[in-house]
């Protein structure tokens, strides 16, 4: 296999241009700086395993040694990872955990079940321990959706006065999400006390819908928690149109995964064949708007500090 001097040892792969991916890539770039290795950053065209396979397979022919990859389809990605590993290349998954067992050596991700549970508990607290929840899921072809839904249902069951009044799904675009959330709100009227969204697009859409909803003084206050951040979401929290969102440490996904790969390329060995690294999450409300970034950075710092004790030898 030809390996020219300018072949970067590490490839960081993002699904497609997307705010989450952009933040992760910043983490990857920071890791490259801090570890002093060259990292090739590649971003695909579609959020599908197909597209990822086509692109990564093309890359795998080029003599790179290690890959940091988002598993588009947690089961399907294992096929891709297996091929890379068989080809003698290291793989670290970031952002979501592939189905276990997996050929990848590490996963750096938010514990989505925990994050969804925490978010839903936070929503229940905001609703004062009782009320009706509109559960907004993002896609129907993503296993994480099911994990999140299970977590939310479990929280609702723990609180006798809380019920999920309707679940809506299948909205991988903001426009569709806005339409569906609006429709549900229109259909349920005052029958909703809280909304939880567990995807980026519905969160963006819900922020817009609720901003509009709360602009009408006759409408009752609907509590809300979303996931992921974006300028409009942060702005809506700041001006009180929505209550909270969960930040998933995307910077850390990129930074930690690439740092580990850099060590492995330099010769470090994993302590276990496979480990999950919880990159942590933080609930953002009006109170910690200006400090949440530091909280997340602190989590990342803690993980990096423990790398040699817990993950590598």
């Amino acid at each position, binding site marked *: 296999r030809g390996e020219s001097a300018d072949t970067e040892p590490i490839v960081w792969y993002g699904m497609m241009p997307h705010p989450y991916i*952009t933040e992760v890539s910043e983490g990857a770039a920071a890791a490259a700086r801090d570890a002093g290795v060259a990292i090739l950053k590649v971003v695909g065209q579609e959020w599908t395993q197909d597209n990822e396979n086509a692109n990564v397979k093309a890359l795998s022919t080029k003599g790179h040694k290690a890959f940091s990859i988002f598993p588009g389809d947690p089961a399907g990605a294992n096929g891709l990872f297996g091929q890379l590993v068989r080809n003698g290349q290291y793989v670290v998954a970031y952002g979501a955990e592939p189905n276990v067992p997996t050929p990848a050596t590490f996963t750096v991700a938010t514990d989505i079940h925990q994050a969804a549970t925490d978010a839903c508990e936070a929503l229940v607290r905001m609703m004062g321990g009782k009320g009706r929840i509109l559960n907004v899921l993002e896609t129907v072809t993503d296993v994480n959706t099911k994990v999140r839904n299970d977590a939310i249902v479990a929280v609702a069951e723990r609180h006798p006065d809380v019920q999920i009044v309707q679940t809506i799904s*299948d909205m991988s675009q903001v426009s569709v999400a*806005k339409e569906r959330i609006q*429709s549900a709100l229109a259909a349920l009227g005052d029958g909703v006390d809280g909304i939880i969204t567990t995807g980026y697009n519905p969160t*963006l859409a819900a922020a817009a819908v609720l901003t509009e909803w709360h602009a009408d003084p006759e*409408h009752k206050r609907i509590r809300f928690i979303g996931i992921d951040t974006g300028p*409009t979401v942060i702005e809506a929290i700041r001006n009180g149109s929505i209550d909270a969102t969960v930040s998933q440490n995307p910077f850390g996904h990129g930074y930690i995964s690439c740092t580990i790969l850099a060590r492995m390329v330099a010769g470090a060995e994993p302590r276990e064949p496979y480990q999950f690294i919880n990159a942590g999450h933080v609930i953002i409300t009006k109170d910690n708007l200006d400090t949440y970034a530091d909280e997340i950075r602190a989590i990342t710092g803690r993980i990096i500090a423990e790398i040699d004790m817990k993950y590598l030898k």
Partner: protein
Amino acid sequence: MSKDGKEARALEKRTVITGRTIGLMTAALILFGAIALVSSTFLSSYTMFVLSRQIAFFTLIAMAQAVCLVVGGMNLSVGAIGSMCTVVLGLSLSNAGLDGWIAVPLTLLCGAIAGLANGMLIVKLRIDSFIVTLSMMFIFMGLRSGISGGQPYPVPTSFGIVGQRGFMGIPYVFMVMLAVLAVMSYMYRNTVFGRRMLATGGNADAARLSGINNNNMIIGANVLSGLLAALAAVLWTSELGSAAPETGDSWLIVTFAVAIIGGTGLKGGVISPYGIFMGGIIYTLIRHGLIEMKANPYYMNVYIGVLILLTIAIDRLRERYDER
């Protein structure tokens, strides 16, 4: 002489509200009535506001598709143009800090230019519009991703007025759409440009042999399509309160579904703007009705598919029945 006058009126009448449009109206009314019966919140002003805005939006993007279908082509890049225009709007409002009165015309211009590019490529390279707009879809989508990096642009709150407010419970967006409808309907009935576009779509060879410059008609239709897509993007940005680059990603299939439910022929030469409006209403009501009924979200698409098929099948049966 008076006979001609009557005929002229007959033509105008026939083309404003055709039999098909009446059929669609009936379908829309039945849907409306059915939902109103089962839902207590359906007739609330919030619901009406939200739904009419949705209808306006679907109708506009379907028009952007229909104007290309009319000349016998199609525009697969309609959503991509919408996305790109959103980025242009976001850039001008947010990064360049331009005023809306400058940013919006700029965005519309961008849409028109994108449509012009489509049209020029179709006629100059003499390649099917399907292929050209498919390629251009890639290109426009790439441009919007490259320029924006996928990040939405914040827009000033004042920019949200048109998209989020209304007058007497009627959203401004809906009024804009009605105005566009009226103009389009008039254009296809009474202007030389409109009639010629219909002729080109009806039979391009015959149109050419009648001295019509088909190329100009095709270019014109594509510019119009780009313009309408840009307009939809502007209204959508205003409604959302931020310029999201992925704006047009879900448009493509909707535009076809609505335009076709609305009776626009895929073979060209036929359009009914009011029919498309009805198509927008039916499509919106189908989707809203499913949520009202708390349809299993995982099976949602099945119901949507079946209902689209049913609507069109009933419409065709009616038509065949009428022909007797």
